């Protein structure tokens, strides 16, 4: 049996990669990112958890709890809670990563991607980049809403920017945990329930919305070691906002910026390869 060589007569194989290596990977990631951004533009309700929800949460928390929660060490609740509100919105919106990936797997479009000569991890990376972009939008909206209701950072501009980046980086690492969940879910619906069952408790059992000093001892211990608390405290420190956790002896509360970075990197280093492995396992048959 003779075997055909690559091109039959009269065919111009244009399929050979013109851009090899890493540059090709970047292109694939960008193509997937744009795809996911188009998705968001088509279903603006998908975006509500980074647009309407942040405004709603900010206004509600500031006006409902604002007067009722004393901040140990003094300071206004509005200045205290803004980092926590941004954290809450960012962390809960990573649920979109799980739902999106689960939907892709469910609808069979991943089969199309898998039969293309593309860099396969671009399916995951492109998703996470698009979600990072919506996180940035979320941060902008929370910051603007905060300024309207009276939030005032008290630090240099680079320090303020660093505070936002710290929270965004932390949320990015959590989006890879969410990716793992999406890849293990049987359906988009079960992926969505992850947000309520896991993300909300993680976001709330922390110093994000209230100072942990008022919690029962065992809960406070969990909250003080919760990565969410470290990242939130880190942002408060960088923004020059009240940080009552600063007086707590737990190491992450004494070094919140360092702890937030360590947590973020650790989560990323575990979750990203795990998501990649789940993706491979989910698509092998």
């Amino acid at each position, binding site marked *: 049996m003779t075997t055909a060589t690559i091109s*039959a007569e009269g065919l111009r194989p244009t399929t050979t990669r013109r851009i090899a290596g890493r540059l090709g990977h970047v292109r694939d990631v960008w193509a997937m990112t744009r795809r996911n951004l188009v998705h968001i533009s088509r279903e603006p309700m998908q975006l509500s958890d980074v647009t309407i929800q942040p405004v709603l949460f900010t206004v509600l928390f500031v006006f409902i709890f604002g007067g009722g929660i004393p901040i140990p060490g003094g300071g206004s609740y509005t200045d205290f809670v803004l980092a926590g509100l941004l954290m809450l919105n960012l962390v809960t919106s990573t649920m979109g990563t799980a739902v999106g990936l689960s939907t892709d797997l469910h609808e069979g479009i991943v089969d199309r991607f898998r039969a293309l000569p593309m860099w396969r991890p671009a399916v995951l990376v492109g998703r996470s980049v698009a979600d990072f972009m919506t996180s940035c939008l979320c941060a902008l909206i929370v910051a603007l809403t905060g300024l309207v209701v009276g939030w005032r950072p008290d630090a240099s501009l680079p320090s303020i920017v660093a505070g936002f980046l710290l929270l965004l980086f932390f949320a990015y690492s959590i989006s890879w945990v969410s990716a793992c969940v999406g890849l293990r879910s049987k359906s988009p619906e079960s992926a969505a329930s992850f947000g309520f069952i896991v993300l909300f408790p993680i976001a709330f059992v922390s110093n994000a919305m209230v100072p942990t000093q008022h919690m029962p001892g065992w809960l406070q211990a969990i909250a003080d070691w919760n990565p969410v608390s470290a990242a939130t405290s880190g942002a408060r420190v960088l923004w020059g906002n009240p940080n009552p956790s600063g007086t707590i002896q737990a190491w992450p509360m004494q070094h919140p910026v360092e702890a937030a970075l360590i947590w973020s990197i650790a989560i990323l280093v575990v979750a990203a390869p795990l998501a990649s492995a789940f993706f491979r396992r989910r698509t092998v048959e």
Partner: protein
Amino acid sequence: MTDTMIAVDGLVKRYGGTVALGGVDFAVPAGSVLGLLGPNGAGKTTAVRILTTLALPDAGRASVAGIDVVAHPAAVRSRIGVAAQDATLDGLLTGRQNLVLVGELSGMGRADTRARAAELLERFDLVDAADRVLKGYSGGMRRRLDLGASLMTRPPVLFLDEPTTGLDPTSRQRVWETVRELLADGVTVLLTTQYLEEADALADNIVVIDHGRVIADGTPQQLKEASRSARVEITLSAPHPDAVDALRPLVGGSVQVSEDGRQLSAGVDTAPGLATAIVRALDGAGILVDDVEVRQPSLDDVFFSLTGGHIEGAELEEGVPESAIGAHSA
């Protein structure tokens, strides 16, 4: 061209306890269309999934354009186009965005991608719908776009998994025309279908699979000739008592005689000169014949006799010489 573009050798695939493919062999010469024919669940899609690198075989080998699909899946992917059974498109993108996405992810240049997408939208009569979101497309439009997506990179090998299932006759005709045009370009096509008509119209060769095994292969004509379901119908000038006896050595099975005794019919193995032999035999017995008609089986007859039951499949294997049809044990 005698080069083999797709080669499948002893392919085995199990899903849990079910055997989807139980040792399948076939080859597709470059520039030809192979019709992979079989009922639902026969293993057609599994074979396509292995050839398009979506599934790994448990045993056996498969290669596309001379490249092993297991050893070098990336190289295979850059040479194939796939239109899967469930149109795998992005429902939230427009038709054009879908094609562009496929082009970009295949490493085509930006200008080439845009030009090719426009060309294919035109070819598949989707220009008006090009910038509409896919959710508003009809089933036929989605199918056409899916076919377009599979052609973005001008692949030399194309896999079409039931490309016309659920299409109206006009759309089906259009898909057929497209496949014929691709052949003119020298593309090799593997097409799965449940429609015999489709295999008959498009395929140079047909492989019939059932329960994960090849039960027959050959050209559409060979398959028809190989079937026992051809019938001969004879009209005598007048009823004759010796007619049935004269006919019996030439036909298989019983001879049916009409009430007036002039019409005789019987199942036959088609063979060259069959009608001549029948006329001679009757003439030799002094019987006058008005009409002899050998009715060729349709591919449907062949298909149902092959897949209707394994006993009939086994009969076919005994009765048919290897030269006419490469029948495999069922």
